[in-house]
């Protein structure tokens, strides 16, 4: 089967669906394809998202896909010292809602459909070729081969990021930047506070952290991300050990397991080429400190959709004409990431004792409001190297 369209979007995660919605809204013919049988499932994610980030993109919160609101964060050091921060005290990235991704992702795809995008599920891109005036994405739709002739492809194919590579872009994730993640959705947790997201740091999760994101009174996503440059054990062994030892999880039962790679190296430079834009995880739109990527995937998708539709309008699909997307994402997302990346490098340089010292100092101080300045002051007091690694950030 042959299909003609202005724009084909590969991958119906949040980034792809928002790209499809925006491009369709701006007048382009859009086809959104996804290899899965059910959009949004299985999730590969802890499901945390920022409230304000959704608002900025005009996505109205719907109780169907909000599992729980979070009011703050609990940071736990290796000796189990807890630092409790609430949202009034500090701006916590990727926090506010814990989603039900299976519902949210479908909601976003439905919105794209309502804006006029066509959707094909169980349709997996297998090849990319260039033609005189565009591209052909070959796809397998169940048993059938489909040739999609498009002027522009928006690659939203997740951390695998193969479509961009087929187009000649250098967008695979370097091994030392790929968090290896696994998570259980569990019931029967005994949480001290089931309205905050929890992050456990130190040797419990080499190169990353362990998380508990509550989805109900006794339900939570319990997961881990580790850098495999920091440990030889598979992520799941670290997670199972954590669950056995953590008083909140040791009696809980898993009802689902998820896994995935999380590219935390920051934005890839080559996110456009002739006839192609890369969005979401596929282009490294993941907060390097937190590993959270839903908000920035959505934002990148929105920019890509608009820039692509404008390009269709002007009849110029060259990399040069798509460069506006790089500019928009650099300014609005990339610059923030550089700071988060530095903060992450600092965090990774701390051993368990240093993390404990910092947590103790936090607990000692009564902080009403945390500004980057007070935070830095506190960190320098405990470990002078903070000045060296973070001083220039603020």
């Amino acid at each position, binding site marked *: 089967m042959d299909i003609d369209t202005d724009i084909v979007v590969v991958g119906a995660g949040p980034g792809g669906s928002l790209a499809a919605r925006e491009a369709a809204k701006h007048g382009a013919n859009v086809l959104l394809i996804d290899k899965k049988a059910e959009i949004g499932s299985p999730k590969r994610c802890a499901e945390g998202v920022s409230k304000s980030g959704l608002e900025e993109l005009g996505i109205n919160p719907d109780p169907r896909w909000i599992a729980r609101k979070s009011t703050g964060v609990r940071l736990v050091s290796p000796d189990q010292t807890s630092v409790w921060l609430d949202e009034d005290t500090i701006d916590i990235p990727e926090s506010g809602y814990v989603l039900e991704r299976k519902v949210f992702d479908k909601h976003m795809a439905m919105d794209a459909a309502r804006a006029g995008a066509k959707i094909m599920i169980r349709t997996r891109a297998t090849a990319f070729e260039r033609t005189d005036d565009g591209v052909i994405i070959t796809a397998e739709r169940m048993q059938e081969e489909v040739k999609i002739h498009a002027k522009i492809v928006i690659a939203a194919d*997740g951390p695998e990021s193969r479509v961009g590579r087929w187009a000649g872009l250098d967008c*695979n994730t370097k091994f030392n930047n*790929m968090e*290896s993640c696994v998570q259980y959705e569990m019931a029967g947790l005994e949480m001290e506070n089931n309205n905050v997201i929890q992050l456990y740091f130190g040797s419990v999760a080499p190169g990353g952290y362990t998380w508990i994101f509550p989805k109900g009174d006794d339900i939570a996503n319990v997961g881990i991300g580790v850098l495999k440059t920091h440990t030889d054990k598979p992520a799941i062994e670290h997670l199972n050990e954590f669950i056995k030892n953590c008083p909140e999880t040791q009696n809980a039962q898993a009802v689902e397991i998820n*896994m995935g790679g999380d590219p935390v190296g920051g934005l890839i430079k080559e996110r456009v080429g002739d006839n192609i834009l890369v969005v979401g995880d596929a282009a490294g739109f993941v907060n390097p400190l937190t590993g959270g990527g839903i908000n920035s995937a959505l934002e990148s998708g929105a920019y890509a959709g608009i820039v692509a539709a404008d390009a269709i309008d002007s009849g110029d699909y060259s990399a040069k004409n798509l460069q506006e997307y790089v500019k928009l994402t650099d300014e609005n997302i990339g610059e923030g990431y550089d700071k988060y990346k530095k903060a992450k490098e600092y965090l990774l340089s701390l051993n368990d004792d240093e993390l404990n010292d910092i947590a103790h100092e936090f607990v000692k101080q009564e902080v009403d409001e945390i500004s980057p300045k007070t935070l830095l002051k506190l960190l320098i007091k405990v470990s002078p190297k903070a000045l060296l690694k973070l001083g220039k950030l603020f």
Partner: protein
Amino acid sequence: MIVNNNCLYCGACAGVCVADAIDVQELKIVIDEEKCTKCGLCVKTCPVAAIEME
């Protein structure tokens, strides 16, 4: 390369594959043995140790 039953097709392996040799299908992983350089990065990255090198 052997993909064992731990695999849940998450694609972390494909993301780090420098040779673009790993095809993550809906319920299947196919490793192109001709492209594969046996570098082992996929084996290390897999969160559940689902890839083994012969």
